[in-house]
């Protein structure tokens, strides 16, 4: 099956700093890829390059068959980016944010979908609220509702559970799982390793801007030789891989 996301040799530099170096990977429809790595590893830069927010220094990103550099509008129509810190227009209400998104993506049945999403995100009754009147968790839910409105083929999530309460977390996990089952490809960056372990089919571990491991948890375990590797938790694997990745060559 064709991949929804194909990244080839992605690099991003900020002046002298190489934040992302030669990343290449693919994500298939229905697949959830976990992006993990220590602070400053380049996860957010990678996600922002894949969302078309930052221009890559080199390399290619294809979303649903569209080159993000050559056909950015078509590529962006197929994706949703949910940042760790939701950003809104403070003067638009919750409902108006959905209306705005609907026009941008041409979602004709947006009112029906919007109501269902608000219900799913427990935001019913908040339609006329301004973002400034919402709690941190509610803002996160609104960001997710806006992102899901146009049924994107690729969903990029940066710490999606920040600010959510335990019930919200459970609902969000179910919601993400359902989107994947419906055929969307998900790239999920998080420091919450149990969440990554629970939701993701494959992992991409980044350290120092480079991919240090890519594959399913079992693949990565198998790559680590010895008895220790076979039974290691994701947390232990993470520490071992990133510590090794951080070593100077």
């Amino acid at each position, binding site marked *: 099956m064709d991949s929804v996301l194909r990244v080839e040799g992605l690099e991003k530099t900020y002046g002298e*700093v190489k934040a992302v170096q030669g990343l290449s990977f693919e994500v298939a429809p229905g697949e959830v890829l976990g992006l993990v790595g220590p602070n400053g590893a380049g996860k957010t830069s990678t996600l922002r390059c894949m969302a078309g*927010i930052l221009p890559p220094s080199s390399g290619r990103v294809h979303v649903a068959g569209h080159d993000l550099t050559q056909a*950015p509008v078509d590529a962006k129509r197929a994706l949703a980016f949910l940042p760790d810190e939701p950003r809104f227009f*403070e*003067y638009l209400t919750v409902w108006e944010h959905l209306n705005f998104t609907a*026009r*941008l993506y041409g979602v004709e049945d947006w009112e029906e979908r919007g109501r269902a999403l608000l219900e799913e995100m427990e935001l019913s009754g908040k339609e006329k609220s*301004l973002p400034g009147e919402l709690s941190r968790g509610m803002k996160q839910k609104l960001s997710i509702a806006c992102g899901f409105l146009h049924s994107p083929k690729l969903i990029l999530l940066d710490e999606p559970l920040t600010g959510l309460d335990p019930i919200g977390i459970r609902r969000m996990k179910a919601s993400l799982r359902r989107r994947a089952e419906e055929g969307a490809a998900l790239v999920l960056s998080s420091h919450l390793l149990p969440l990554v372990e629970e939701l993701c089919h494959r992992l991409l571990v980044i350290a120092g801007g480079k991919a240090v491991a890519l594959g399913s948890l079992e693949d990565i375990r198998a790559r680590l030789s010895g008895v220790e590797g076979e039974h290691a938790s994701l947390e232990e694997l993470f520490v071992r891989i990133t510590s090794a990745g951080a070593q100077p060559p």
Partner: protein
Amino acid sequence: MSFPRAVAFLWVASWLNRIRRQLARLRKPRYLLGALVGAAYFYSVFFRRMDFRGPVGGASEGLRLFAELSLIGSALGALFAAWVLGRDRPSLTFSETEVVQLFPAPVSRRALLQYKLVRGLLGTTVGALFATLFLGRAISPHPVLFFAGACLALGTLYLHSTAAAFVRTRLTARGTWGLVIRWGGVTAVLGLVAFAVLSSLQAHPVPENLTSGRALRVWLQSLMASPGVGAVLWPGRLLVAPALAQSVREFLAALPPVLVLMGAHYVWVLLAEVPFEETAVVRAESRSRERLLRASGRMARVGSMTLSKPPFRLLARGRPEVAILWKNLIARKRMGGGFAVFLVFIVLGGAIAALMGDARLFTDTRRVLGPVALVLAVTLTVVGPSAFRMDLRMDLPKLDLLRALPLTGRQVVRAQLAASGLAVATFQLTLLAVALVLGPGVEAPRLGGWWWPGGLALAFLLPAVSLAGLFVQNAAVVLFPAWVPADTGERARGLEAMGQRLLALVGTLVVTLVGLIPASLVALLVGIPLSPFLGPWSLPVAGLAAAGVLVGEVALGVIGLGHAFERLDLSEDRPE
């Protein structure tokens, strides 16, 4: 380390770090150039006018009277505000950092209060410095004495408003009786003031023929010398006397009562102290929210955003960039700004005309309203692009959000410009319509047949010139983000930032004027040959041609700016 020493360390270290950072920035040419321009401006505007060699002669009597009345009025106004306006709660404001760092620290409430008072008094000292720079030289031959006097006056007023807020909080806590005591006291004082002023006015009625400034001054001086008004003005006079002193001897004579008054106010604040932590936390959070809101739009008014209806219904089908236009028009409606500026224009214009004693304002509206509306429409052409900012200047701090939208750079730039352009054009055309319909019209001897053709030409030209101005200002934030920062709510401070702003202002003005040259040439090339045939009606044709050239220039510019927007990478200085 004791709390006062810790605070002193904090302030000194913060100040040194700021200076160090600013000096480090000067290594970059753009900041160095900005600093040089800023320093030159500061010197030419303020210091060149100040003479520290000693007295060179006092201000005129009229100016002194005006200054004295203004300062006394401001002082009495501050006293009135302290007791009547605002909410009944402690007026001390702490930043969120101060709340988080100092409130849980092992520090008594009294120490926190002292800290805030010192901080407030430092703030009033800065205020006094600016007052000296702006007014001191005009009012007093001794800027240093004026500064010292202003420090004492502003400091005493600060202490008074702090103590008044404490007393109001205490009275409110007492319930109805507290309110009766407060408002009874305020009413009694206001009643006495009204009685004193009225009785003085009876003794010194307004002269029927106030034809000259001198007559007005003489009457005012006699009124101020009367016992009633003299008693009302006494507290204010006492407070501003050191600042207005014309000699060292006068200053020293005026100093002791103010020092005693300030000391008494300090003791009053300590005695009246009430718990202020809860209010401080609420205010710190509210200020933080306010800052966030301002970051999304310079004119945002927190807490007063009314959910007015969107300007039109946004359908899901159609050109996607219309969503940005819709959003920005909502921003204009909900965050005011433009309309408020427009109202200020009207009110100020009327007030100035009334102050100048132009009675025609009330008797011959056709001769006044029309020209006023016309002047406002033309003024809006210059001021509008700076006042109406519902465009990239407002949205660029949310670049991440804009860049993730499925729109080309050209679509984003076009839609962003459209909102501000439409808003300015609407005001301009309304004002022009008012000017044309209510103005003197064709009956005016010198205007005659030029009235309507000229108006129509302006209707084409003014919105196009404003659009060009808007384009230049939007282009500046995209092309030179380091020089022309978007509206983040937090303005960069320092001499170099001021210099950069000045250079950017001059740059945008020059570019706008250069952009007008082709349009002017086309207008001349079209208008002159047509004038023998069309007479005055060649004007709107030339205006239309010039407007077409300007719109064409902007359209070409939008293409280029769209590409620049797509390449814009604000993250260059901000690694993850």
